[in-house]
């Protein structure tokens, strides 16, 4: 039987039953397992921790890292912080938006219409002496150029 979001969440809650202040580790594990934190599991987490649904919803939506919607099949993050700006990250972000068909606004990312890519701005990856930096599906890449970016995106394969 395939695990359901509810069964995954139940297992995560059981693992952290005795841990003080466990909400963030729980949300991380749920998102790592499911790709996002479905709205349906929020009441379940709230009940498991004896919190209100509003408290759990508040935490999920407060932190940039947590997602309530399923992301695209590939997640691309482009650093927007000052060090990367000094090396042309604004132009790189514009290039990424154009290439991937995504539009970012302020701190918010977006997913392309075909569900292939999610593009997120990120505020510092700690690679500030090798700017600009991006992350493509959990892999870091520094000293990025539009040409190198296209090569990496093409390498993701046509079908994925």
């Amino acid at each position, binding site marked *: 039987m395939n695990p359901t979001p509810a069964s995954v969440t139940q297992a995560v809650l059981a693992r952290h039953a005795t841990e*003080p*202040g466990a909400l963030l*580790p729980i949300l*991380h594990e749920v998102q790592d397992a499911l790709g996002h934190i479905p709205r349906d599991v929020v009441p379940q987490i709230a009940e498991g921790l004896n919190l209100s649904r509003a408290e759990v919803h508040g935490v999920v939506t407060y932190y940039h890292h947590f997602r309530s919607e399923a992301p695209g099949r590939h997640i691309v993050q482009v650093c927007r*912080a000052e060090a990367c700006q*000094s090396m042309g990250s604004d132009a790189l972000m514009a290039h990424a938006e154009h290439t991937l068909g995504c539009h970012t606004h302020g701190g918010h990312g977006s997913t392309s219409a075909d569900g292939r890519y999610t593009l997120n701005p990120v*505020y510092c990856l700690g690679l*500030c*002496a090798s700017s600009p930096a991006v992350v493509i599906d959990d892999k870091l890449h*520094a000293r990025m150029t539009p040409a190198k970016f296209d090569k990496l995106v093409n390498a993701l394969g046509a079908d994925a």
Partner: protein
Amino acid sequence: MSAVTVYVPRDSAALAVGADEVAAALQAECARRGIALNLVRNGSRGMFWLETLVEVATAQGRIAYGPVEADDVPALLDAGLLVGSPHALCHGLTDQIPYLAKQERLTFARMGITDPVSLADYEAHEGYAGLRAALALKPEAIVQQVLDSGLRGRGGAAFPTGIKWKTVAAAQAAQKYIVCNADEGDSGTFSDRMTMEGDPFMLIEGMTIAAMAVGATRGYVYIRSEYPDAIATMNEAVARATAAGHLGDNVLGSGRAFQLTIRKAAGAYVCGEETAMLESLEGKRGIVRAKPPLPAIEGLFGQPTVINNVISFASVPLILARGATFYRDYGVGRSRGTLPMQLAGNIKHGGLVEKAFGVTLRELMFDFGGGSATGRPIKTAQVGGPLGTYLPESQWDLPLDYEAYAAVGAVVGHGGIVVHDDSADLSKLARYAMEFCAIESCGKCTPCRIGSTRGVEVIDKIMAPPSPKHNKPQQVQLLRDLCDTMVNGSLCAMGGMTPYPVLSALNHFPQDFGLANPDRQAA
């Protein structure tokens, strides 16, 4: 022939330029040639323009090659990399590379030299000498050593570390906590990341010493989610230290307990503020708490808590091992010891430079950094992260210490230096500072939550084409008034210091705002 030892860094700045591919190519090519290879994945030396920096152990010492790409490996082996032969990418003995030779590496003494997750390697390089010395002392004597060293918080606020510890030590409670703030969100900073990835036992040892000094038995390291490699390395190091009895119920056989847990943050910049971080550790939204009470009295779960930055804790083992005087003898004025500074942004030779306080920005940017990466003139550098000021050339010869910087309204912060060339538009960077504050504000206090959005709007009006509706001098005055409200009315540094980059941009680079007459009010 015995196996040749070759070092390929595992630091994420090396991984991001292909270090894993270089390591795999070395292994494959050596296997093909029937050469026995002892591959060590070390931390980074902190010379990021040379990454991937491959080092080979020779009778003369370690010899450096870089920047190496996987495709270079066969030719490097042909040229005699394994015996340290010359090559276009060879830089000779690593220790004699001027960038490293000119530094004063105390905290970063082991960085890039050891295998980060080898406890044996750590102990062979003075590791755990500090904790062993501490365990022979009474707790108050440990605190006294830290006080005498003059160590101040390296996270940015520069509060004397020993005074924090003394407060927690004096507090009465059944449970006390040690919390390491590893939410290194400032652009241009990576010394915490390097420490966690490249010398994690040093941080663990420093936190353990703090626990012994104040009587805490539990600790947390709160690490940014943007640092997955640091989280993985810290988890591995904690597991190894626990297995070896360096953490756990009986630290080094002392009969004292210290349990350490790694916690992953979730991408909120404001959680670098210590009370917001405590809220986050408790499983809540990272909303700033009003102070008092101080975390040293009522911190995590309401209990007395020592909160220090990674580099503050990491500085402690050496202080205990070599004595407070040894550390205090470095530095100037009330800024004692060394600071691992981070040269970042548009800089030719970016990386980690640990020097005693008192070095100048000009020395760092030109003697170490070699000027801009683009080859264009340097216009300014922002020191101390996104809440630090932009320093014009007239301030590049100031000694880098807490007091000298404070005297001109600047901050040393966490020691991050982001260099910009003459193509930078300071009005855009000022607008970005306000925009960043609007995105990252926790929302608790009005000057930060609303002021940052109004700040973006006012800067847009200043930069708009002249119109009867927007009188430029009036809008500039409005921006100054707004900044005054934010500085004096915000609950924490997020809103309180966002005006630093904004006003320094306006004061030192008025031409970028279309203002003809330089207005040199202090930032």
